[in-house]
């Protein structure tokens, strides 16, 4: 299809629309990338950045709209087809095989061979040449498992370059890199750009976007809301474009005056988060939102509080009860409960019916002498909970696997309510469930808080955080970047804290200059 587009554009996307069940991920998105430029794509969680990247790389297909490469319309159905046109996607989660060498990973599936007999020397030499090209000083026969995350990221880049990639799509490449590793990556990116390779760079970290990008495209709710270049490419302008919507209240909540102290966290150090100690408190009847970008340490904090992940130090008290670290049993005994992030693998035994799932956490307190199951109690308690939570589709003998996501989540919540916890932790409590079920979960949270329960919930959905919270803790890089009471709550305020304040940006920039 002939089209009047600039011939110098390497890739152009026109009016891309992509729907997922129940939501429109991208709506009429336009994007162009020219040879030798770094284009950053930014936006909140769920703005559609990853979906767009996957479409451009051939992982997903558009519902409507068109993608042009070198002015020719293309219909990429697989990553391989994208690769043949010189487009390479470097995933958020790395796709390397740690048990193989660097060389084997770079040429995986394209090993030089003769009748299936691998030409090892040729493989090593070719790998060494690619590694040299990006200035990565490691031997091609090093095992990937021996490399740091940052080096692995660069091996991914080497793999993409070995496929003659002209456009590298990088989805959150620095999310698990140290500052010096990120600096090294930026050097490589600049070098590649100067040699004519284009880079699409997706990141939450506005500081590094400012530093590395030639242009910025802002996505919000699946639509392009801003093109920033030159001096407009500053943090304030980016944040303004990322949020800037009328925040329609998803839920109208009656706020209560909060009561006495329910949860007291002192200097908690999460082993799987950053090493900085976290301290905060929750009062009875208070709903506290835990905001932050993906990977900011919200889940790690909740898991550590509940004893699933080990803590490297600190004290957690529920009322007067000191929680033993690394022991969910102790956390439960002290009156804590966790609705985990992944209800399928952590919240429910999917193969079991609703009733045994509801009772699972409470059996040790509700049984007859000698560990005999109290089936009368189980039946009554679960029937009452099914009514209380409004769980639909629960039948004895019907596995929870066959319930809808919203009802599954109500089962997980109901399981903990059988315990009467004083402190309820919820990790993304409404992820992947429909609007109706979300409202029911919100109402349940409100009712529980009104009865005096303290609730700490994490969410990637800003509306949820704004609508439900009495107070918000914003996390950034494993630390609590700030605390916002309901009166100071705004999307801009949360985003500013979540993307890191000016100070940390300045320190990163200076450290990059040193390396």
């Amino acid at each position, binding site marked *: 299809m002939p089209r009047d587009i600039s011939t110098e554009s390497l890739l152009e996307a026109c009016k891309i629309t992509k729907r997922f069940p129940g939501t429109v991920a991208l709506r009429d998105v336009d994007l162009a990338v020219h040879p030798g430029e770094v284009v950053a794509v930014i936006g909140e969680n769920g703005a559609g950045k990853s979906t767009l990247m996957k479409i451009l790389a051939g992982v997903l297909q558009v519902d409507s709209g068109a993608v042009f490469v070198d002015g020719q319309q293309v219909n990429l159905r697989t990553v391989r087809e994208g690769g043949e046109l010189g487009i390479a996607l470097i995933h958020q989660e790395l796709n390397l095989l740690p048990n193989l060498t660097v060389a084997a990973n770079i040429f995986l599936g394209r090993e030089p061979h003769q009748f299936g007999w691998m030409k090892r020397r040729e493989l090593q030499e070719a790998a060494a040449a690619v590694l040299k090209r990006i200035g990565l000083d490691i031997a091609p026969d090093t095992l990937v498992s021996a490399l740091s995350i940052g080096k692995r990221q660069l091996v991914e880049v080497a793999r993409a370059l070995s496929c003659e990639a002209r456009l590298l799509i990088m989805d959150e490449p620095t999310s698990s890199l140290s500052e010096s590793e990120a600096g090294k990556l930026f050097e490589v990116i600049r070098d590649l750009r100067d040699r004519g390779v284009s880079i699409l760079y997706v990141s939450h970290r506005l500081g590094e976007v400012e530093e590395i990008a030639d242009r910025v495209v802002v996505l919000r709710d699946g639509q392009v809301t801003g093109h920033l270049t030159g001096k407009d490419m500053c943090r304030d302008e980016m944040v303004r474009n990322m949020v800037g919507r009328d925040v329609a209240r998803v839920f109208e909540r009656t706020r209560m005056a909060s009561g006495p102290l329910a949860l007291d966290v002192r200097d908690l150090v999460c082993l799987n988060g950053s090493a900085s100690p976290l301290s905060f408190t929750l009062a009875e009847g208070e709903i506290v939102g835990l905001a932050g970008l993906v990977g900011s340490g919200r889940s790690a904090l909740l898991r550590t509080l509940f004893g699933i992940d080990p803590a490297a130090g600190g004290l957690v008290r529920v009322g007067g009860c000191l929680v033993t670290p690394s022991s969910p049993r102790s956390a439960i005994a002290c009156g804590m409960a966790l609705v985990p992030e992944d209800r399928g693998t952590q919240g429910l*035994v999917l193969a079991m019916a609703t009733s045994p799932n509801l009772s699972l956490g409470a059996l040790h307190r509700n*049984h007859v002498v000698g560990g005999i199951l109290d089936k009368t109690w189980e039946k009554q308690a679960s029937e009452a909970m099914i009514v209380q939570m409004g769980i639909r589709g629960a039948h004895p003998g019907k596995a929870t696997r066959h319930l809808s996501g919203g009802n599954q989540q109500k089962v997980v919540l109901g399981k903990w309510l059988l315990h009467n916890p004083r402190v309820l932790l919820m990790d993304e409590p409404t992820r992947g469930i429909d609007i109706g079920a979300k409202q029911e979960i919100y109402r349940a949270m409100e009712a529980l808080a009104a009865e005096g329960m303290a609730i700490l919930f994490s969410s990637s959905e800003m509306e949820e955080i704004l609508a439900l919270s009495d107070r918000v803790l914003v996390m950034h890089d494993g630390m609590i970047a700030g605390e916002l009471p309901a009166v100071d709550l705004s999307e801009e305020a949360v985003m500013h804290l979540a993307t890191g304040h000016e100070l940390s940006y300045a320190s990163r920039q200076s450290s990059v200059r040193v390396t």
Partner: protein
Amino acid sequence: MKKILGISGVLVAVFVLTALLEPNFLTAYNLQNTLRWTGLFGIISIGAAFVIITGGIDLAAGSVVALVGVLVPLLLVEAGWSLVTVFLVLVVVLLVLGLLHGLLITKLNLQPFVVTLCGLLFYRGLARWITGDQTQGFGSAFEGLRQLAIGRIPITESFGLPIPFAIMVLLALLAGALLNHTIWGRYMMALGHNEEAARFSGINTDRMIILAYVIAVLTAGLGGVLFALDVNSVQPAVHGNFYELYAIAAAVLGGCSLRGGEGSILGVVIGAAVLRLLYNAINILGIPTQLEFAIIGAVILVGVIADEFVRRITAARLTRSMPEN
């Protein structure tokens, strides 16, 4: 329940077919023998089932049968220890072995297959070494004790219920109660399906897994005592060979999934009965006994294939009838 229906059908079919083809099958002598062996194998299969339900595997059962099989006559006859002492020593030894398996698997995070494979090799070697590979037995002594294995509870003039079968029924009732009516049985089922969710629910999953391996070793030990009393000549090198595989086969035939979380004690008992019945049918119908393993293997394979089809059909029906809400 559906899973038991299938295996029960196989049991009835083999029984009726063999009875029609060979009337001698229904003699009291033959039935008593089959029931006795069903009891003996059923006992070790019940233990295997607990381990399989938690998502593990126990390969050491046959060697535990051999080790116990040489220890009992060795201590009772050659060393002349009292019955009570031997009983207590056995219980302690078995508890230690079960705990060892469980601790290695949960605390050191070793794979059940590897741990119990090492057990299989180690206990066999130990049994052969302490006896110098000499056949062990009770001779004509301990006739009373041996009744536990060879005795019968008279029902009619010509037919008596073999005591090992009665012991197995008792054990099955206990095991069924543990699995279906106690919180620990519920925990094992839950963690067999999804260990992480069980842990998130505050269940001490390690302790439950250790319990399963202790049960497996204890039942293998009980089976070992009865097998030794029954044969009265225990050859350390071959006694109990492959018994762990019979136990696993019975559990799988009886509806246990090697993925964990599924199984019933009644099913396992019926599974053990099917295996013994097949063995008996092969013998009594004059089918070359060399074919024994081939026939048992084929029956198990057909059984699990049929099971998979039933599962797919019910799953498809469920998805179709599932109301979206």
